């Protein structure tokens, strides 16, 4: 018993504190909107409306890890959306050609910014301020300041479609309790698989730690953490099942979160970004080609911006010159709210995604309460400032 106790270590609460804040804000709005924000259709909107910000926040986190930001992403979203629009509407070509072209344009903008930043040493702030201006101007020129649409349904599926469903009617009792008349079986099955995967990965993590005789968290903490995660999963999936099932955007998001979560935590290349952000000179002398890291971080940002551009155009069913306006700020704010260090070197993909959802819930809740977007901006600004201030103060206390 005694030796066992020695190997216990408390969980880092800060890592999970964001989830609690997320839940807290959600409950707050549930009260102020009298439950309107928890309705199945609204949960669905929450995911569909924030899909592109989540995608951008993932890419932005890598930039933030290097200690920089990318101001150009909103404009790249617009350019790639308009390229897809022109190909489909004006050139009347296949949607796949449009998607590939949009991805290629996104990569090109990334290569462009990455080249100036990594190999000519121009500060990222300046380079991406330039791509922001150039991208927006290019969009207006390409679209001749007009909206291009409507797009074919098969393309719009990317932003507005749902995965296949098996709808089962609910009895009157359940229908009343859950707030819907049918429930999608596929969503429930996916939720079960996700829960099993979560429990399994937690168990495997625990047993490897035991095997190597590393310190583990107390059982009640692991159980509590699992319970909260499972609650979030089931809350979302049940709500989605009561609506139209799983949005396609959710699939894109989950894949990107998984891939980039893996890259940033488990690969040599990913950890090199952290090393670069922590101390560039030391990273150089540790055999890391920091120029190369910078280059790929910005190429990647261009690539993810194009995915966000494709999704946004699909959701709107058209390409508009003002598309993606201000998205860069939402993405940057998501990273900071999600606990990334402003100076670089610290932050997680999950944190950035949670940050994006905190922003999304704020936007959504305030819209439901009838606040205008202008007022929403005031609150968003305050939340960003508060989050970073708390982060900085808590660090100062520690040292």
């Amino acid at each position, binding site marked *: 018993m005694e030796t066992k106790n020695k190997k216990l*270590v408390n969980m880092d609460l800060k890592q999970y504190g964001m989830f609690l804040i997320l839940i807290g804000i959600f409950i707050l709005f549930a009260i102020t909107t009298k439950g309107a924000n928890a309705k199945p259709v609204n949960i669905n909107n929450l995911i569909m409306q924030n899909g592109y910000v989540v995608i951008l926040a993932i890419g932005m986190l890598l930039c933030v890890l290097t200690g920089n930001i990318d101001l150009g992403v909103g404009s790249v979203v617009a350019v790639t959306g308009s390229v897809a629009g022109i190909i489909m509407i004006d050139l009347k070509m296949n949607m796949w050609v449009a998607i590939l072209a949009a991805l290629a344009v996104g990569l090109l903008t990334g290569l462009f910014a990455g080249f100036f930043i990594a190999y000519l040493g121009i500060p990222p702030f300046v380079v991406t301020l330039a791509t922001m201006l150039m991208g927006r101007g290019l969009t207006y020129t390409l679209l001749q300041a007009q909206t291009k649409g409507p797009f074919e349904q098969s393309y719009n599926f990317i932003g507005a479609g749902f995965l296949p469903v098996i709808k089962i009617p609910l009895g009157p009792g359940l229908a009343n309790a859950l707030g819907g008349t049918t429930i999608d079986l596929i969503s429930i099955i996916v939720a079960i698989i996700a829960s099993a995967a979560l429990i399994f990965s937690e168990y495997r993590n625990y047993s*490897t730690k035991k095997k*190597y005789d*590393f*310190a583990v968290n107390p059982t009640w903490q692991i159980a509590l953490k699992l319970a909260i995660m499972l609650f979030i999963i089931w809350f979302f999936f049940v709500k989605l099942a009561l609506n139209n099932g799983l949005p396609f955007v959710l699939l894109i998001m989950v894949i990107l979160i998984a891939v980039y979560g893996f890259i940033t935590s*488990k*690969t*040599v*290349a990913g*950890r*090199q970004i*952290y*090393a670069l952000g*922590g*101390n560039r*000179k*030391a*990273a*150089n*002398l*540790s*055999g*890391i*080609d920091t120029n190369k890291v910078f280059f790929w971080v910005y190429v990647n940002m261009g690539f993810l911006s194009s995915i966000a551009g494709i999704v946004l155009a699909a959701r709107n069913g058209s390409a508009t010159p003002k598309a993606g306006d201000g998205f860069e700020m939402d993405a940057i704010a998501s990273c900071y709210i999600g606990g990334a*260090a402003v100076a670089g*070197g*610290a932050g997680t993909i999950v944190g950035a995604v949670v940050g994006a959802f905190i922003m999304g819930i704020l936007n959504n809740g305030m819209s439901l309460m009838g606040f205008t977007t202008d007022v929403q901006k005031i609150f968003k600004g305050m939340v960003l400032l508060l989050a970073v201030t708390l982060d900085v103060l808590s660090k100062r206390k520690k*040292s």
Partner: protein
Amino acid sequence: MSDYILEMDHITKKFSGVTALDDVNLKVKKGEIHAICGENGAGKSTLMNVLSGVYPFGTYEGDILYKGEHCKFHSLRDSEAKGIVIIHQELALSPLLSVAENVFIGNEQTSMKGIIDWTETRRHAKEMLAKVGLENEDVNVPVNTLGVGKQQLIEIAKAMAKKVELLILDEPTAALNDEESRKLLDIMLQLKEQGITCIIISHKLNEIEYVSDSVTIIRDGKTIETLVKGVDDYSEDRVIKAMVGREMTNRYPVREGVNVGDVIFEVKNWNVFHPDDEHRQVLKDINIKVRAGEVVGLAGLMGAGRTELAMSLFGHSYGQKISGTVLMNGQEVHLKTVKDAVKNKLAYISEDRKTYGLNLIGDVKENMTIAARPFFFSNHGVINENDEIVAAQDYRQRVKVKTNSINQVVGALSGGNQQKVVVAKWMMTQPNVLIMDEPTRGIDVGAKYEIYCVINELAKAGKAIIIISSEMPEIIGTCDRCYVINEGEIAGELTREEFSQEKIMQLIMAHMRKGDGNGN
């Protein structure tokens, strides 16, 4: 009134349960130079922060009596108003501003409120600089165009401008070479003549012996004793004994059971030019060889080109137009990038761990494994985290990093422990050749000893080790052989039997004369 300018009585300072200072007493006589000694983490800097108001009154227990007055400082400003100025190890100068501006930063010379009087600023700055022996310096040039030694003196001039009465210097010579250090110490002696009281914190015991009138030794947050020059035994060994709490009969552990093997590292005709000036040759026809299990020193004055040699070898990290050959185990290797160097089993431990060695916000494990990761802890780019944890635990014990966990953030460790993390980082790359640049700079006697032990272990394991050090006793104490480098050339080579500080200096002087002769 007593003849003490400062009396700190029964100072106790706790940080969330950890006692950093435990009933510390410090008495400083007016007009003396008082040294404070102690290992890293002993509490010297904490004590000075209490004195200068960085830790405000009320956050510590005890009493500060300054010029017979009870002091309750709430900030640096309060203590500066009383004439107490602290100069930290890291320079607090604004690099792009002029010398004059820096001297009066935060204390501007104004004609009307808020409007700077530039004429007065320059005139006054010249006066202040004269007091620290910089009367010939142009006050209009940016501070970063001057050397570190002069910058340190400008810090003192800045203190003078604040009408300092009690000057506290925290490791003032840490970044200076012997000559610059001597100059600084002499300035301190001059200040003493002018009636200024000084407190100096330093690891360099020879400097303390030279400059100070009394020394207070702190160990583990407690005052051990105060020694007075001319009254007590004031030798280095005596001070070390009080610092570590035991006799340090030998500061350098004996290396036994090492079989020096064949030459495994050889540099031939190495030429390097300055990175910003392609006509300036920094290194000229350097030839060195090191055998397996051999520890070879590179001695020389600061700026002789030793760090430049090491960094140019280590993946061309310094300089341009590099020519020459590097042989490893008799085979020529091309080390154009750091990655090439690591792959070919060469490691370089930088002289400046904070700038070039560590990710201070990263944890111990991350810092230890970052360089070795592509080669040992990953498979097709995917990290094997469990291997990393096992290795980090192992090396933490091998190099004796004093930390509870490998998840400890490196920035929170003491200098000695940080240095051990850097050493572990490069041991993990399994090098055959290690270049250690000032491996014990700014770390305490105990940590130094442990680093020397690690060096011995490495030699025993058949590694070739090159040590760059500006402390000649360190070269003499640890090396089997040494090259003396001066002005980018090898000035000579000495074997262990020939070692002495005089010999090294003679070689440098002889080479300088030769250089002058060639020049004329």
